[in-house]
């Protein structure tokens, strides 16, 4: 099939960007979206034009490196699917596809479709861990954790840190990302000793990075390739209120 792409090109963080139009002829429906871009890039290189920069690595939907807002939807039209796992059979011959980077003040554009997501790392550094050093851990079965709790903790921990939640949120809020990490530990006994402190510190870090505020649009949940549910946001709100009420504000 033949497609027209409108791709965001931006030379650097401080340059103005613009949408540029490219043809993508002879696209096979079995290609992944990124393989389609590979082919476009291969042609650009052959024509002596600068290829489109985009982030990608594992191409199997787990590293969280790939991004792309495709026709206004992070990771494109297929639910629960990262861009690297999106296949061209989701599009029709003759389609025009707009490809934009994640847009958020906290995710500045590095070049073209590549953005800087280090703000996510800094939020985790603020408290997204159980403070245990290596060594001295008790036997793994000494602590019983019910299957339901373990499963819920996994549901939350399934986050790949791609940032689609931020990209999808009209307010560029990072609540789902933060709430997922808070929920991961909140559902495990290992997370209890630092529960209040972790919640407040991570929320404060999220605010400091310049993400927007949650308005319960639930776009994040719809865009999340790992289908992390918004109930975790409500749970984090509760944990935050409890922490503040207890005077443990981090």
């Amino acid at each position: 099939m033949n497609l027209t792409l409108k791709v965001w090109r931006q030379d650097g963080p401080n340059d103005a960007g613009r949408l540029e139009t490219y043809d993508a002829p002879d696209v096979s429906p079995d290609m992944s979206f990124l393989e389609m871009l590979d082919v476009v890039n291969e042609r650009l290189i052959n024509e002596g034009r600068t290829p489109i920069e985009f982030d990608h690595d594992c191409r199997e939907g787990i590293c969280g490196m790939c991004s792309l807002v495709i026709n206004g939807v992070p990771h494109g039209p297929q639910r629960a699917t990262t861009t690297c796992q999106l296949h061209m059979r989701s599009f029709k011959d003759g389609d025009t596809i707009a490809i934009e980077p994640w847009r958020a003040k906290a995710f500045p554009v590095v070049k073209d479709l590549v953005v800087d997501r280090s703000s996510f790392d800094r939020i985790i550094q603020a408290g997204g861990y159980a403070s245990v050093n290596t060594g001295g851990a008790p036997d793994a079965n000494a602590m019983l954790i019910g299957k339901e709790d373990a499963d819920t903790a996994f549901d939350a921990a399934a986050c790949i840190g791609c940032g689609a939640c931020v990209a999808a949120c009209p307010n560029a809020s990072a609540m789902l990302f933060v709430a997922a990490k808070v929920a991961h530990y909140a559902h495990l006994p290992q997370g209890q000793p630092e529960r209040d402190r972790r919640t407040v510190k991570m929320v404060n870090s999220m605010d400091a990075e310049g993400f927007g505020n949650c308005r319960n649009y639930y776009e994040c949940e719809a865009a999340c390739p790992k289908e992390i549910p918004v109930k975790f946001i409500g749970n984090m709100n509760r944990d935050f209120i409890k922490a503040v009420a207890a005077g443990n504000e981090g």
Partner: protein
Amino acid sequence: MNWLLRSLQSSLGKKFLVAVTGLALLGFVVTHMLGNLQIFLGRDALNAYAAQLKALGGLLWVARAGLLAFFVVHVATAIRISLENRAARPVRYAVDPGIQRTVSARGMLVTGLTVFAFVLYHLAHFTWGWVMTDAHMLTETLADGTTRHDVFSMVVAGFQQPLIALLYVAAMVLLGLHIRHGSWSFVQTLGLNHHKFAPAIRAAAAGLAWLIVLGNISMPLAVLFGAIGLPDGVTV
């Protein structure tokens, strides 16, 4: 108390403030509507209710001050949040269809600010008497010779003006949209969510919003279509 103020200034704290004040305002909207629906019971019922409220004296002022404070905090915090949200996405998407956001959710600022403007008009109309001053001056003389404010006639006279009636109807639809999102959203924001009840809560919120819209617009529409008229002998 620093920690509390600081926490209330965080993104979650601000949302908490909007939710709590919104909940209080929702309570007011419901009570206000229930009181006003007495218009269907006739002139005596509504005017007596109005007089009762007035008779609260100092308490009424306390309530008004409280309401005003909630209102100011709700609106000011919401505006602040909206400005921050705008700043959080300096470059907007060229294509932005949305995935599952609702009109009511997306329009909170617009519906909120419009309702805010409407409330000012509403006060100017029925409380301060700046609109249709003659109707505002109407009184009713009771059997014992005392007089009281003729709220019933004032309202009916107002709603007999088609433009005013339609303005109220339009404002109530916007208020309904605002409440439709706000009245389930607070559950999530205050962490009272429960994933099993979430769909029920959203349905209940929509139901509540509809009831508020229907209850409130029933009054201007009843007047406009002549189901309620001015009492005999009252002219404006």
